């Protein structure tokens, strides 16, 4: 493409600068809007991703066919310490947590409640994340603590227990002592009332002493620093390694644990791409208008060009170039405005109003905008494609002009 032709196209656009700038602005707006739209969509995806993975981990290991197992003790992973070590070895950089759920009765004085006590040791990043959404009064579970128990506030209220009180856990039919006495060391505010009435947290050692020595219900692999779904390459890779290393166990990623939600998540971005195509079609209509008017005004000029020896294809190329330049410049402007905005929002933002709502579901109200490089590329390609398509009709009319008739036009 000779530079001179590009200059010619530019000057032709500049000739009707108000009209050109309007179309250019529309394209810039749509590109910018698409970037924001993708990135907010990405934020929603990430928020869902974190809700799925923050509590339960990116990967869970169970005994094989654990969903079919009815008997509690048949569902337990034996040699928990050794397996956990093996998992740690395969999942470098992850927080690996063994969890033992103990179904039983929690008793305080005259009152009792059926609960599933969760025994686990909390690595620092996980306890920090948990306590961010579930504020605590008193202190949290410490690894190896044989006597401390943390209760949901709703459960404590039902039992009439407070910090410092003794509670007894009775777990009949288990392989350990079957019972144990614990001191309430902390109360957590769990916003969901159903969960609040059931939350009871022990250290893993304490739970194992009551229910089953060196056993866990599941092992969770957490990557707490992964905040964006697109950054999560670790879970599939680690899961593959774990399956090879521990073939007798069930190894599931978060995607396999929540297949329905994952299907929704996966369909979000394609849906957004389709919606943004609609934006581009609207902007494209403005571009068509601008290029078409520019063509009609210059029919005489095209007649002259053709008389001098320009082919129809040449004229078509010139008009298409103008349109693509217009849209390309619009895209550049849109990126210049949109990308910094997305970058800013990537550091985390909250949506006023939604904040309360999210908190009530124990969900992190901070969104992290994120855009995939391919989506930036999409936006630019959509813009350039709009340029080509918008030129198609005016350019094909111009290319079929008869030079003599064209020169008679308006002159």
């Amino acid at each position, binding site marked *: 493409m000779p530079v001179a032709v590009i200059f010619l196209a530019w000057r032709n656009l500049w000739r009707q600068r108000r009209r050109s700038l309007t179309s250019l602005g529309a394209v810039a707006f749509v590109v910018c809007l698409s970037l924001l739209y993708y990135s907010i969509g990405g934020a929603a995806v990430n928020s869902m991703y974190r809700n799925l993975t923050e509590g339960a981990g990116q990967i869970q290991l169970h005994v094989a066919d654990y969903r079919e197992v009815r008997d509690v003790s048949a569902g337990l992973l034996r040699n928990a310490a050794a397996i956990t070590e093996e998992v740690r070895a395969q999942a470098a950089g992850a927080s690996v947590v063994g969890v033992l759920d103990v179904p039983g009765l929690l008793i305080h004085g005259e009152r009792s409640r059926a609960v599933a006590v969760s025994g686990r040791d909390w690595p620092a990043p996980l306890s920090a994340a948990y306590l961010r959404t579930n504020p605590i009064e008193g202190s949290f579970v410490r690894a190896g603590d044989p006597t401390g128990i943390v209760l949901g506030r709703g459960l404590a209220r039902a039992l009439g227990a407070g910090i410092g009180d003794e509670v007894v856990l009775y777990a009949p039919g288990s392989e350990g002592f079957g019972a144990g006495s614990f001191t309430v060391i902390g109360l957590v505010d769990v916003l969901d009332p159903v969960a609040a009435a059931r939350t009871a947290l022990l250290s893993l050692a304490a739970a194992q002493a009551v229910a089953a020595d060196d056993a866990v219900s599941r092992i969770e692999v957490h990557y707490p620093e992964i905040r964006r779904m697109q950054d999560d390459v670790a879970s599939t890779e680690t899961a593959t390694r774990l399956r090879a290393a521990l073939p007798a166990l069930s190894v599931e990623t978060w995607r396999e644990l929540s297949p329905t939600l994952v299907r929704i998540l996966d369909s979000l971005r394609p849906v957004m791409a389709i919606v943004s195509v609609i934006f581009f079609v609207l902007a494209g209509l403005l571009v068509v208008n601008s290029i078409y008017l520019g063509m009609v005004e210059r029919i005489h000029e095209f007649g002259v060009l053709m*008389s001098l*020896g320009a082919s129809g*294809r040449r004229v078509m190329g010139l008009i298409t170039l103008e349109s693509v330049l217009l849209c390309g410049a619009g895209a550049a402007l849109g990126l210049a405005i949109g990308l910094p905005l997305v970058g800013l929002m990537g550091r985390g933002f909250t949506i006023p109003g939604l904040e309360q709502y999210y908190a009530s579901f124990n969900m992190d109200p901070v969104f992290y905008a994120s855009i995939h490089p391919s989506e930036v590329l999409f936006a630019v390609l959509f813009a350039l494609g709009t340029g080509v398509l918008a030129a198609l009709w005016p350019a094909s009319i111009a290319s079929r002009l008869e030079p*003599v008739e064209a020169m008679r036009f308006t002159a």
Partner: protein
Amino acid sequence: MSLYRIENLAKRYRSGEVETLALRGVDLTIEEGEFTAVAGPSGSGKSTLLHLMGALDAPSAGEVYLNGTRIDKLGKRAAARMRLENLGFVFQAYNLIPVLTALENAAFVLELRGVGRREREARARQALDDLDMAGYADRRPNQLSGGQQQRVAVARALAAEPKIILADEPTANLDSETGHALIELMRHLNREHGVTFVFSTHDPRLLDSVDRIVRLEDGRVAGEETRVSA
């Protein structure tokens, strides 16, 4: 071999029910180096003849040969190519590209031909110089008078060194003095550089320095005059 050989050329226009015979059997030859005027009253078919010579339109009957090659039945693409390679055009008015400077306009045909920037600018400058327009190279058409614009249009044709320059009433929008000066410049280029010109006019006062006048009337050649010198 003649540069142009035109045989029994006819053109019929039809617009609705009305049929106009713009040309009714024109025979004409143009030799290389000639300076020919096609003269005739308005509606006599001058533009039609020049358009057919430029393969800008198809005749209803007859044949047009350029350097022995028939050009009246070319397709659109081939016709454009033929014009680009062989012909220069100057029209009545408004035939410069408004967004380009005089120099860029003069270089435009060369650019269409794919000539490199350095060469086409040198040739365009030379052509502007030949038309006494060197001082206006950077002006846009709207910063030039009508006469200056027409000189740039001639320079554009000239820069491409065509076999012939066809000019359809190049002076029609100019006052008679400016028009006369333009014809004199063209005549000068014809004598000094051997450029072949055919131009049309309905103004008899422009015909003094022309060595060949073809008079059109009602779509027919009504007479020819050849002058030995002017």
